[in-house]
């Protein structure tokens, strides 16, 4: 009796191909989420890498058009979930530009302080997972130990750890809690020692150096032409940092260095981020010293929610509160593109208003989206094992890529 096998089990007699196409992801642990790569291999060498994205697409840009301006803030938290305060900042600043709001100095300083702490936290996740991908497991635990302290600070200020939604159009949700400055100071005192530990574990590590040096090279011209930004661009020797080039939130008053390396490989991007953590530490310390008592909300009663106490005493405060919550506030017609330097690069928001309480169009230019698009260029001619090193060095977050 002959058995017929289903076609997928049929043995095909053909000579061994030299080229092979394999699918990496979307469940591969080194793809940092749900990224799929279609790799064409010749032996262990990568001929072509084609990223396939969209597994995490949730239609956020469509959702913005159906939500009031202040409701959009919570959506932004869920894009780059390692740097939610940066997303909040880009979004609220675009709306503030349309409204023409002036933000009080204390609110701006707190924004800078919390965003720089968030940048350190984001870089810590990058460092831990990047090292883990390459095989250095210990660093991961040290990084997450430090990150936990920052998340505790953000939780103290906003009530949320991963989704703080701390910034509001016109200022902050509320002022910092009592004792916050002391806790930040404690963290800032401890961090240099932790940073030194990371250096001991990785920077001097010969295996780590051999895995990263000369891998995934991209030249400065290519990096600009492919739209790379943030540490990926600065790793190729282009000293572009939007905090310095087009300052916002008072960054022109802070003293910090724009870190660059010239090699443009995985190692260069590693060094840039390592040094950036120290710069963020420096900016945080300066912001902490600049904190002076004052209001944290703009003087715009039709846009900014009134204080609880004012609502109990003043009729107009109660009316404004009701109108903002029930109907939202009208934003004048116009369009803006506002870009900030997020932990991964240029985070731009294109916001268009036709008047009324809901935006006509909100578009996010995610730095991860653009940086990932250059992956085929960086990975051609590299080994399969180096692909995970290159993806790690790009520091992508799929929540932001797919939106």
């Amino acid at each position, binding site marked *: 009796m002959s058995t017929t096998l289903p076609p997928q089990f049929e043995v095909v007699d053909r000579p061994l191909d030299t080229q092979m196409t394999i699918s990496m992801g979307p469940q591969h642990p080194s793809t940092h989420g749900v990224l799929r790569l279609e790799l064409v291999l010749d032996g262990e060498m990568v001929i072509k890498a084609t990223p396939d*994205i*969209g597994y995490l*697409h949730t*239609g956020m*840009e*469509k*959702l913005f058009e*159906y939500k009031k301006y202040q409701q959009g803030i919570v959506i932004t938290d869920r894009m780059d979930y390692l740097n939610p305060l940066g997303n909040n900042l880009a979004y609220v600043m675009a709306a503030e*530009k*349309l409204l*023409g709001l002036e933000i009080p100095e204390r609110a701006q300083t707190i924004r800078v302080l919390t965003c720089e702490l968030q940048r350190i936290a984001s870089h810590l996740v990058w460092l831990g997972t990047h090292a883990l991908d390459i095989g250095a497991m210990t660093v991961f635990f040290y990084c997450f130990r430090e990150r936990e302290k920052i998340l505790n600070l953000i939780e103290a200020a906003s009530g949320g750890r991963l989704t703080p939604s701390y910034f509001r159009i016109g200022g902050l949700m509320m002022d910092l809690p009592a004792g916050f400055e002391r806790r930040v100071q404690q963290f800032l005192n401890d961090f240099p020692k932790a940073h030194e530990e990371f250096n001991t574990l990785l920077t001097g590590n010969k295996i780590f150096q051999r895995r990263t040096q000369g891998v995934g090279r991209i030249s400065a011209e*290519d990096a*600009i*032409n*492919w*739209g790379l930004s943030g540490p990926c661009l600065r790793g190729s020797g*282009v000293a*572009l940092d939007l905090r310095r*080039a*087009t300052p916002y939130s008072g960054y022109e008053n802070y003293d910090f260095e724009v870190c660059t390396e010239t090699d443009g490989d995985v190692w260069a991007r590693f060094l840039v981020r390592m040094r950036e953590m120290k710069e963020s530490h420096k900016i945080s310390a300066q912001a902490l010293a600049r904190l002076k008592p004052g209001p944290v909300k703009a003087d715009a009663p039709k846009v900014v929610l009134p204080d609880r106490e004012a609502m109990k005493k003043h009729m107009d405060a109660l009316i404004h509160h009701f109108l903002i919550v029930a109907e939202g506030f009208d934003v004048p017609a*116009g*369009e*803006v*593109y506002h*870009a900030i330097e997020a932990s991964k690069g*240029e985070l*731009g928001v*294109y916001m*268009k208003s036709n008047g009324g309480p809901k935006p*006509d*169009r909100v*578009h996010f*230019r995610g730095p991860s*989206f*653009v940086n990932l*698009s*250059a992956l085929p260029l960086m990975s051609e001619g590299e080994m399969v094992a180096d692909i995970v090193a290159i993806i790690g060095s790009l520091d992508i977050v799929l929540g932001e890529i*797919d*939106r």
Partner: protein
Amino acid sequence: MQSDPEQTGLSAESGTSKPAPSLLVAALQRERPDWFSNVVEALGEVTAIIPREELISVCSFLNSSAEFKFDFLSDLCGADKGPEEEPRFEVNYHLFSTTKHHRIRLKVLLKEEDAKVSTVTGIWRTANWHERETYDLFGVIFDGHPDLRRILLPEDWQGHALRKDFPLRGYEPYSLK
């Protein structure tokens, strides 16, 4: 804008009734008055509405010109004004200069039945994914694009999700075939 008078070698034009255009706009209009006739300055940003046929020439000029050096395509995104409006679609190009640190927005208006524009991937390679995204979500065709496929939504998705007449919850539940 960030441009410095010494760098551009220009002084601001003195306006009559309207406010004087910024140095960047004045320089652009002096260089190519035919391309930059329709320029809007609002909220500290410059928007130039460019005829679709001229887009490639304008982009190559801005990219290579030593005076403006718009070498970085920050962002490219579509927008839909709604099915009643004509021209219905717009494509926005946000350019940035990595050396002069100024920005400009180029805007191309497209009619619904002829939503086609030339690709700028030949000038900035980064436009590749941005144009695929705009095609995916708005249905704008980019002529000459090397790989114009859907990027975020599945290949067999029906319709273009960010169009105003596409319902928020879609037409029917999507299931993988």
